[in-house]
């Protein structure tokens, strides 16, 4: 018995060892000059943000179509390879591996949640593939996660929370309470709001953390009421925001304090309804209502309406559009699909796709852009899309962003 076992063991080791040590077929991982330009697009098509994700896809397809209709690049057309990352970082990594290794994409654009973009970024940077993230996060700009292949199209919490702070504190008061989703993104929002608030003399009475995805906020509300702040900042996102807004309304908090939120999604407002969001203001990267004052917004909206039956793009949709357009434009400028050449072209790109002039900051490839402050409205709504009043547009400036040094970038 022992001898037999040892024979089996030996056999195992030999075969296993041979398999591992032998140099297998060497796959050509280099991006072949295939006919179409392939752009991978991982996004959470299933899960709580599928509405936003589908908007991203729609707008991205619009960008691809515009590029192809204009003749493409040297006759080569672009193709969007959409994959469902299920809002799950592990799945996002697998999908990105699939896109790079199997589909041999030239570039990757996409992601929606803070966590998935970081995992997609991790996979892309190791394999030297350009990734333009359309998800909000402060972390991706930091030197730890960043790479020369990383671009960040979307706003980050420093910009949005800061803008909301700068708007609301002078108008509503200096005593602040935070109701924060207890995860990295929530903390980033608090940090950014406090940073801007400090310059305006604001004080934080409390930072109340709730578990991510909590459905019942009632446990936190009596304390908030007792603290009696001037401003309540809801540092959460998506469904959490909808829940929180609803319950704050239920508990009658609006009568004694102003409720603001760093990121007010169009889709969240639609899901929550006019009553829950009445009086709540927040920041966003895009609202279709901009078309009255910004010409490219109107062009974008009209193209979107034409392609999609009169519906308007949401904030995340606009990011999907811009993310793709920047990459495609850079290909044309670089006259090549070679990654480093496109990176160089994108670094120097000056563009205006949908909201006014933008460019990428050199040290961290962050798209420098405006922040729009909107307030939810419940009366005088022209149609079902008319849900926000635009209060102000904070202009494009690097002053409101964290400095390169702060983020850990040298030089």
């Amino acid at each position, binding site marked *: 018995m022992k001898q037999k076992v040892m024979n089996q063991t030996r056999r195992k080791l030999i075969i296993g060892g041979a398999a591992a040590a032998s140099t297998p077929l060497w796959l050509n991982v280099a991006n072949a000059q295939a006919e179409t330009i392939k752009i991978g697009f991982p996004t959470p098509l299933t899960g709580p943000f*599928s509405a936003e994700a589908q908007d991203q896809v729609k707008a991205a397809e619009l960008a691809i179509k515009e590029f192809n209709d204009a003749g493409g690049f040297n006759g080569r057309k672009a193709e969007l390879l959409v994959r469902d990352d299920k809002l799950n970082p592990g799945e996002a990594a697998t999908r990105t591996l699939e896109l790079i290794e199997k589909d041999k994409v030239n570039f990757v654009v996409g992601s929606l949640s803070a966590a998935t973009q970081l995992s997609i970024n991790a996979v892309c940077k190791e394999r030297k593939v350009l990734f333009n993230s359309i998800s909000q996060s402060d972390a991706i700009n930091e030197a730890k996660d960043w790479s020369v292949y990383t671009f960040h199209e979307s706003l980050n919490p420093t910009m949005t929370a800061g803008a909301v702070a700068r708007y609301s504190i002078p108008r509503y008061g200096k005593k602040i309470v935070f109701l924060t989703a*207890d995860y990295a993104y929530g903390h980033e929002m608090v940090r950014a709001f406090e940073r801007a608030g400090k310059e305006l003399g604001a004080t934080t009475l409390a930072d109340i953390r709730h578990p991510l995805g909590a*459905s019942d906020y009632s*446990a936190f509300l*009596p304390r908030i009421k007792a603290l009696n702040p001037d401003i309540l900042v809801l540092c959460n996102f998506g469904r959490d925001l*909808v829940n929180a807004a609803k*319950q704050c309304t239920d508990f009658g908090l609006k009568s004694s304090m102003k409720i603001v939120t760093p990121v007010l999604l169009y889709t969240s407002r639609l899901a*929550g*309804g006019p009553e829950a969001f009445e009086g709540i203001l927040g920041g966003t990267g895009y609202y279709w209502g901009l078309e009255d004052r910004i010409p490219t917004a109107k062009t974008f909206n009209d193209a979107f309406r034409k392609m999609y039956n009169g519906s308007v793009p949401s904030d995340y949709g606009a990011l999907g559009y811009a993310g793709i357009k920047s990459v495609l434009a850079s290909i044309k400028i670089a006259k090549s699909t070679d990654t480093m050449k496109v990176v160089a072209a994108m670094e120097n790109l000056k563009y205006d796709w949908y909201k006014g002039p933008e460019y990428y900051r050199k040290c961290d490839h962050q798209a420098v852009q405006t922040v729009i402050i909107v307030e939810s409205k419940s009366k005088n709504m022209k149609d079902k899309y008319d849900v926000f009043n635009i209060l102000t547009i904070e202009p494009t400036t690097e002053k409101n962003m964290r400095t390169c040094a702060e983020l850990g970038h040298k030089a």
Partner: protein
Amino acid sequence: MTGLTFELLCMQLLTGIALGSIYALLALGLCLIFGMLNVVNFAHGAFFMVGAFLGVYFLGITGNFWFSLILTPLLTGCLGLVTEKFLVRPLYGRGLDYPLLLTFGLSYVLIEVMRITFGIEGLPSITPDGLSGTVNVGIGYFPKYRLFLIGATAVIIIGVWLFIQKTRYGLIIKAGAADQEIVKVLGVDIAKVWLLVFGLGCAIAGLSGILASPTRSVNPEMGIPILAESFVVTVVGGMGSTVGAVVAGLLVGVVYSMTSLFFPDLSELSIFVLMAVVLLMRPQGLFGKAGAMG
């Protein structure tokens, strides 16, 4: 801690009781099914979610909260009947794990069906008109709906208790839970009893869903954390004990609420710690029978 007053503590306690009422009701449903059928319904959270959706939907189209409140549990109850008859019953006798696993798979399907029917976003929940707003309870302003919640669940729990203790059907259910063989010998169609109890359990889950819907957002994933929380309550109270389910439900709600006051980021963890502690010190739960299940 700044601003810690007696009033605040009382408000927090009241909030905890409102939260706990939902837990108690959910646990009651789970407990009935387990006590009678020895089945752990892993789809309980999903039935809760279905109840919330149906409730909001009917409230939206009829505008009548009471009508939805009666119709919803009937529908989830029927769904429960169908589940028992065709999915769970074939698995009796195969061991404790199989119905559990089946209901686990069922929850996946129910979530997806709701996504397909009502969309991935979920529905905006509506607080019925007469019950919205806050009311002065002496120590502060408390939402009217949550007071209603406490009252309504109390009424329902007492109703179920009366049903089990004072009616013939209740007697049969209790007897069946104690000893199935004898009940069969006495000529009762035990299969019908199983059917009805499972249906009742699911009806209660659906009822919890519609009652809870104005307090939270109604979306297909809302049942997933609820399931874990229901298990915590059931284990703390004791697997087969209805009294345990109610007491533990309120206890868990209060623990969550009070932890939120002092250590808000640990609130979700606190109930699992409570469960672990109870299991280590008194494995059968607060009101469970010793040695019943471990």
